[in-house]
């Protein structure tokens, strides 16, 4: 399992650096911008108050909360990060085993003396490690310029919102992994998991405006995402609940992987059912 973990982490290093630097860059922009924001606070708040409530709902706050540290970071960073990092989770989770399987490489690797459990958990742990790596880089980006900012947040405190973010990432990664074990193609698994992620974001964001949506949203992961509020203390129940869901989805995926056939190259191809129109050829 450790060889699998090491090799998978090694193959994910480009993704870790790319996504990690992307999240870090967001922090490097937003932290210094806070002082500008506060200096122009009145104008900003007036502008934001004129936004429709649906718009504000997407960014997880109201105009008044923007003036606070957690409101500012929540609205401009942490409300969207689950979707941004979630894209990584869905891509990597759906391809963690299915990518090698569909390319035919798993046919050789699975014939080596590494148990399916070792292969599965080695790669899953590598995914957890990669997610941790991305969020650690992101956290470094959010803390690098804290000293020169008037934001009243310490390094350790800034790590708190990254924990619910990690839980969200693991949930979407595990969901994509499970779907890749159940559905006939990786692409389909990625599409479904991505759809769930986007629907979760929209429905949970809008649930504050419509009670009927709130009923649906409570079954979706984003509903339990703390965002910038985590700066004031973690909601342990939500955090541990999300981690338990990610664990349960992973165990189901493992159970399925233990019992299914390893596909060979060419099996499991699937394309979105978008009609294709034959190009007309001009004839003289």
């Amino acid at each position: 399992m450790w060889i699998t973990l090491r090799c998978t982490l090694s193959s994910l290093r480009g993704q870790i650096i790319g996504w990690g630097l992307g999240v870090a860059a967001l922090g490097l922009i937003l932290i210094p911008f806070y002082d500008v924001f506060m200096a122009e606070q009145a104008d900003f708040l007036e502008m934001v108050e004129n936004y429709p409530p649906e718009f504000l709902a997407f960014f997880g706050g109201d105009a008044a909360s923007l003036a606070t540290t957690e409101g500012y970071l929540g609205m401009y960073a942490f409300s969207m990060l689950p979707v941004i990092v979630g894209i990584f989770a869905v891509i990597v989770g759906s391809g963690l085993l299915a990518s090698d399987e569909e390319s035919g490489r798993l046919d050789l690797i699975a014939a080596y003396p590494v148990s399916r459990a070792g292969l599965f958990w080695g790669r899953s742990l590598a995914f957890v490690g990669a997610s941790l790596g991305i969020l650690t880089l992101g956290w470094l980006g959010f803390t690098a310029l804290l000293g020169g900012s008037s934001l009243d947040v310490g390094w350790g405190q800034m790590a708190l919102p990254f924990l619910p973010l990690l839980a969200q990432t693991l949930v979407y990664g595990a969901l994509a992994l499970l779907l890749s074990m159940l559905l006939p193609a990786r692409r389909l698994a990625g599409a479904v998991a991505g759809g769930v992620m986007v629907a979760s974001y929209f429905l949970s964001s809008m649930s504050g405006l419509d009670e009927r949506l709130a009923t649906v949203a409570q079954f979706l992961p984003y509903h339990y995402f703390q965002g910038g509020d985590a700066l004031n203390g973690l909601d342990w129940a939500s955090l541990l609940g999300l981690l338990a869901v990610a664990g349960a989805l992973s165990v189901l995926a493992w159970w399925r992987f233990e019992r299914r056939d390893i596909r060979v190259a060419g099996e499991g191809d699937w394309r979105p059912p978008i009609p294709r129109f034959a190009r007309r050829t001009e004839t003289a």
Partner: protein
Amino acid sequence: MTINESANRVVLMTRGLRKSYGPVRALRGVDLEVRQGEIFGFLGPNGAGKTTTIRCLLDLIRPDGGTVRVLGIDPQADPVAVQARCGYLPGELRLNDNMTAERQLRFLSDMRGGTVDWGFTRELAERLDLAMGRPIKNLSKGNKQKIGVVQALMHRPDLLLLDEPTAGLDPLMQREVLGLIEEARADGATVFFSSHVISEVQAVADRVAMIRQGEIVEVAETWSLIDRALRHVSIEFKRPIGPDALSGLPGVIVLSWSDRTRVDLQVKGDMEGLINALSGLPVRDLETSKPSLEEVFVRAYEKS
């Protein structure tokens, strides 16, 4: 263990092996026995069930029914124990294109827990003229196949499961790979390899099984299959002889006469009766052509 005991020990056994992919019945009760130290050829056209059988042996796919034992172990119960002692070359070999051949082989060596003799691996690579330092994406199909052959042999497995081992290789390299297979057997390995290149099976296999539409058509020693088949004999006489001179001989069928001085025959089994009959006749020339395994194979398929 004596040589005879060793040779009679069954290292690979399937009984009533069945596997379906949806409505397609890929294996319909495959019975096989491969003895220790033999090279066993598994013949069949594309889609006959060769790859499915091999993948069941390694627990890559789960059969719907039947019994499988590899090296005395049930692959479903303890796949790792089977995989540790087998070398496998997939029919559709796919490697990590971004690695060099050496890095890929080192990665696969690590997957075996570092039990691979790297000096032996290098030796294999040199014999196959494999460019170890080049990225796999820049290698031809034949060179990728060489990596597949090396990784299957590098840990000196007890059992080699090779699915079309010479696919994509030039004739010289095909010969080298067949040589490696024979050397592996000489070192005590058992070899089970599938192919639809009958000449290579004929060249190295002790026994062959023919599979068609998921069923074993025939299992026999390679030589006996050929010997059992009809051979074609043409005889030219110095002067015309009587039409009944060669009639009634056991296993001999007269196909045609030409000017009573030339006759074409089909002979089943050994040639002793025919040669005895010819001893009193004025024979100028005699030509006999032994059928190839290919002809035997085609006939077996036509019959079934």
